């Protein structure tokens, strides 16, 4: 089974919720009772069309204000794939939600209102998807029905967006433009007859065609130890298995590995998925590994292949997405969670704030506020084993936890 997580970003009234509703409707994922509820509410609000956005806006406050506040998850499936859409709000004050939604997604949809074209918010949506290194991005130019399905209009917006693309750091990102009308259903699931000049795929066709290689970057295997399994039963008296998820690559029986931080070498003896022995643990599988030698390994430690070591350091610089109302400043201490490993981190310096719309950096900033993105240097109480975010999405990212409130207050991408 294939599962594809998609992040959506759009400004207010770009029709993001309508687009998602349209996908659900056209893939027959809306059930009768949900459809009836939408019809009832649309009528109550005096609309002469079906307000599909009602399919996604869940919280009472959102229904009252007609906006999406939090990350909502929407599910649908086709014969080929299961889809999870992380629907995030587009306002500047919800940058943190966008970062959160994008962090778990492998593809993204950026919506542009064909009447308005590329606006300041589009820059930010693109910036965030690029920062998070989402490999496949669809730019859906929406409300084509309101510009008479004009090819010129579409091309003008595409040109503007391509100018923006020159500024991106992650150049390998795959970007596809599709003219759509979410309200009328053009090129969302079904090919539109109103855009004879467009020869590309519909939005859903594009997503259906995405292969593993289109959404995952090839990296090196990292195996953070989550939990040590020691049954101590008569049958498995000496069993000592290291449970965890394999990231970035694959590990096989017989591989020579190094345990971090001890730097002890061993060989992979067995790999289990439940009670089944496997030769190879594929990326993102939750397995249990046993080693040839009895070495000391506990939660937060990591197994990597010899000749393929990550950086082992107490100092590094990262791009931070700040998510708390209490600011980040030099000298402040946080719990830094890197995968399943936790250390104490001190902010060595706030180097500069990065405008998330490609308008430059600001070196005069001392304190980061909610939704700010900045380059920050850290010092840790003990070394962690990391890769650069651009080389390894999992092993190059971390979260910051406030030591007083225990809240997750920031996300970091190691540079």
């Amino acid at each position, binding site marked *: *089974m*294939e599962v594809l997580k998609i992040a959506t970003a759009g400004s207010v009234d770009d029709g993001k919720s309508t687009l998602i509703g349209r996908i659900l409707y056209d893939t027959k994922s809306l059930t009768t009772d949900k459809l009836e509820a939408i019809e009832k509410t649309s009528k109550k609000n005096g609309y002469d069309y079906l307000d599909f956005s009602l399919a996604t806006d869940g919280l009472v406050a959102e229904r009252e204000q007609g906006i999406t506040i*939090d990350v909502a998850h929407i599910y649908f499936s086709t014969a080929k794939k*299961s889809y999870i859409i992380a629907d995030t709000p587009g306002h500047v004050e919800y940058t943190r939600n966008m970062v959160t939604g994008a962090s*778990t997604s492998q593809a993204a949809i950026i919506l542009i209102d064909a009447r308005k074209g590329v606006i300041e918010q589009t820059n930010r949506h693109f910036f965030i998807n690029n920062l998070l290194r989402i490999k496949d991005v669809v730019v859906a130019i929406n409300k084509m029905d309101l510009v008479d399905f004009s090819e010129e209009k579409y091309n003008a917006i595409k040109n503007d967006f391509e100018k923006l693309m020159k500024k991106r750091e992650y150049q390998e990102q795959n970007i596809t433009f599709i003219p759509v009308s979410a309200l009328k259903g053009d090129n969302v699931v079904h090919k539109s007859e109103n855009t004879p000049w467009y020869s590309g795929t519909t939005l859903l066709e594009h997503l259906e065609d995405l292969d593993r290689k289109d959404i995952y970057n090839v990296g090196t295997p990292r195996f953070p130890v989550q*939990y040590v399994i020691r049954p101590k039963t008569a049958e*498995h008296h000496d069993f000592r298995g290291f449970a965890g998820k394999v990231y970035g690559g694959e590990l096989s029986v017989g591989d020579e590995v190094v345990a971090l931080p001890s730097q002890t070498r061993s060989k992979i003896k067995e790999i289990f998925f439940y009670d089944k022995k496997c030769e190879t643990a*594929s990326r993102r599988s*939750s397995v249990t590994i046993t080693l040839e030698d009895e070495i000391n390994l506990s939660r937060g430690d990591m197994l990597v292949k010899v000749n393929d070591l990550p950086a082992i350091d107490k100092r590094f610089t990262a791009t931070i997405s700040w998510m708390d109302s209490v600011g980040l400043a030099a000298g402040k201490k946080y719990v830094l969670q890197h995968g399943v490993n936790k250390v104490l981190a001190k902010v060595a310096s706030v180097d500069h704030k990065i405008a998330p719309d490609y308008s430059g950096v600001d070196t005069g900033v001392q304190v980061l506020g909610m939704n700010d993105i900045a380059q920050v240097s850290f010092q840790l109480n003990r070394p962690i084993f990391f890769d650069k975010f651009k080389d390894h999405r999992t092993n190059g990212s971390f979260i910051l936890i406030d030591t007083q409130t*225990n809240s997750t207050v920031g996300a970091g991408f190691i540079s």
Partner: protein
Amino acid sequence: MSLTLELEFSMKDTSHINPLENEAIYIFREVAAQFERPVLLFSGGKDSITLVRLAQKAFWPAKIPFPLMHIDTGHNFPETIEFRDRLVEELGLELIVRNVQDSIDQGKVKEESGRYSSRNSLQTTTLLDAIEEFKFDACMGGARRDEEKARAKERIFSVRDDFGQWDEKNQRPELFDMLNGQIELGQNVRVFPISNWTELDVWSYIEAEEIEIPSIYFAHKRKIFLRDGLIWSHSDFVYQEDDEEVLERMVRFRTVGDMSCTAAVFSEASDIASVVQEIRDSTISERGARIDDKRSEAAMEKRKQQGYF
């Protein structure tokens, strides 16, 4: 490759494994590692039975390192209770049962009366008391985001305050795979390992894994009555008007709460394959058969804020 090696490995690699299953196993392991007193909330329904299977997989060859807890409304289908006891026995698990009846007897909650009376919302008090009694710091449950609009915004690790309440506007962001389970004493975390599964995902998994589930999920003859377009079980626990005629029909349950809050569907699907097919073809959502959600559009959100699962 030699013959012996082929025999030794029962799978070449793990690439075909359901990503949702990998995710759930990861979540269970995070719970076991991050919390001191976790508990799996077990209702006897298909979702919590699926959780038990996933937990088995997460810790094999060790036993599941936490107990199960059932908050029993006393109005459960006898088939579910029987099933629960057998499962616990077979897997050698610890089961804690706390009864809504006790909360009623202690005067902590008041039994509802009338046409739509149910003990469903009374469970919250019993659950919160049990969490306090055992000092549980993590309660795992089988809720899924696709079930209901408020649940669509729920985190995988969802922090509850000292009063067991959910503050939907102040939730921790969850980035990448990282789950932040740091809490203060007195707080607890609700954990949803199958957050990202859909109803069809669960049924397909039950089919693929050949997981046993209570018989009420399959078509059977049952005494029922019709009200508001829903099929209600005829039972001592369910309020019924004199003019609501008792019929005997082939039905099954798609979701199982207790008798007073779960409606049946007409069905001839008597095995797992036909149930999966029926779900695929179905145009009514799962919670469309939940009487407790029909109370208002924001019914679930309100109950969750108060500490309901």
